[in-house]
C-alpha cells in the first residue's frame, strides 16, 4: 500500500496565507558532479545571511540558520530520485518563528524511512533518537542519517512531514519537510 503521511507542522495553513514565501528557490544539484555539491552550502549561506539581519546577533543567527538550511537541503538533494529534478527550498519568517521547507521527489525506501522516523519521534525523545542514530552511523558504513535528528535535538525544532505518491508515477513520492524554529531558541544559544 502506498505511503501517505501528514505529520506535525505544515506551511499550507494560516501561516502561509498570512506571511507568504519570504524566499523560495528551485534548483538542481547533479550529484554526479562533486563540484556542484558546494551549491548546497552557497545557497544555505545566502539564505541564512539574508535572514540574519532580523536577529540581535546576526553572526550567530547566520551560523545557526545556515547549518539548519544546509542539512535540509543536503537531504533533499541526496534523496532526490532523479538527480536532475528540481529541489525546492522555501524560508518563511513570522513574528516569532522561522519556517524552512524543502520539497523533493524520493524513492519509496526514503519515504518509508522518513515515515518511520516520524513514528519514532512520537514515541521517543529527540536525544535518545539522536544517540541511537549516531552510534549506528559511527559503527556502520554509508550515509549518516543524522541531519534531521541533529536539527531537532540541537535547535529544539518542530518537524512537519508531508509524503504522498505521485499520481503519474506511484512508485515515486513527493516529500515535503518543514522545520519550525522559535527565534527565541536561536537568540538564546
Amino acid at each position, binding site marked *: 500500500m502506498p505511503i501517505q503521511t501528514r505529520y506535525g507542522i505544515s506551511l499550507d495553513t494560516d501561516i502561509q496565507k498570512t506571511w507568504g514565501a519570504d524566499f523560495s528557490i528551485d534548483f538542481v544539484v547533479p550529484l554526479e558532479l562533486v563540484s556542484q555539491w558546494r551549491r548546497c552550502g552557497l545557497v544555505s549561506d545566502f539564505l541564512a545571511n539574508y535572514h540574519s539581519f532580523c536577529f540581535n546577533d546576526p553572526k550567530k543567527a547566520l551560523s545557526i540558520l545556515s547549518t539548519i538550511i544546509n542539512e535540509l537541503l543536503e537531504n533533499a538533494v541526496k534523496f532526490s530520485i532523479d538527480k536532475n529534478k528540481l529541489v525546492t527550498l522555501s524560508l518563511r519568517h513570522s513574528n516569532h518563528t522561522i519556517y524552512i521547507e524543502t520539497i523533493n521527489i524520493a524513492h519509496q525506501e526514503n519515504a518509508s524511512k522518513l515515515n518511520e522516523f516520524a513514528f519514532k519521534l512520537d514515541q521517543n525523545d529527540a536525544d535518545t533518537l539522536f544517540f541511537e542514530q*549516531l552510534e549506528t552511523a*559511527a559503527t556502520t558504513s554509508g550515509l549518516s542519517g543524522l541531519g534531521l535528528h541533529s536539527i531537532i535535538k540541537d535547535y529544539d525544532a518542530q518537524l512537519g512531514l508531508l509524503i504522498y505518491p505521485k499520481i503519474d508515477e506511484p512508485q515515486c513520492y513527493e516529500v515535503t519537510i518543514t522545520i519550525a524554529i522559535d527565534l527565541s531558541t536561536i537568540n538564546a544559544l
Partner: protein
Amino acid sequence: MDNDDYKIHFDSPNKVIISGVLRLQSPNIYDDLFAPIRDTISQGQSMTMDIQNVSFLNSSGITALARLIIVARTHDAPFFIIGKEEIPWQKKSIVSLKRLWPKLEITLT
C-alpha cells in the same frame, strides 16, 4: 591537505589543526580525509584535533568524527577535541560526542 573551503594541517603527528568550512557529501569522503588521524589512533597513540576555526561541519562530518571516537575508544587512545564555544554547531554537537566515549576530552575555549 588544503582546499578552497578548508585546511587540514598536522602540527605534529599527534595534533591536527582544521579550519574552514567542511560540508562534504558523505561520511565516507571524510573518512578518506581523516585517514591519517585514524591511522595514529589505531596505534593507540594520542590525538588532539583543534577545530576552533571550523565554522561549519555538516552531519556527515559529525558522523566521521564519531567514527574516529569509536576507533579511539576501541584502542583506548587518548583523544582531545579543542573547539570554540561561540560557534553554535560546536557548542551543540561536539559536546554530544562525549556520550560515545566518556574518556573523550573536549575543551571549548
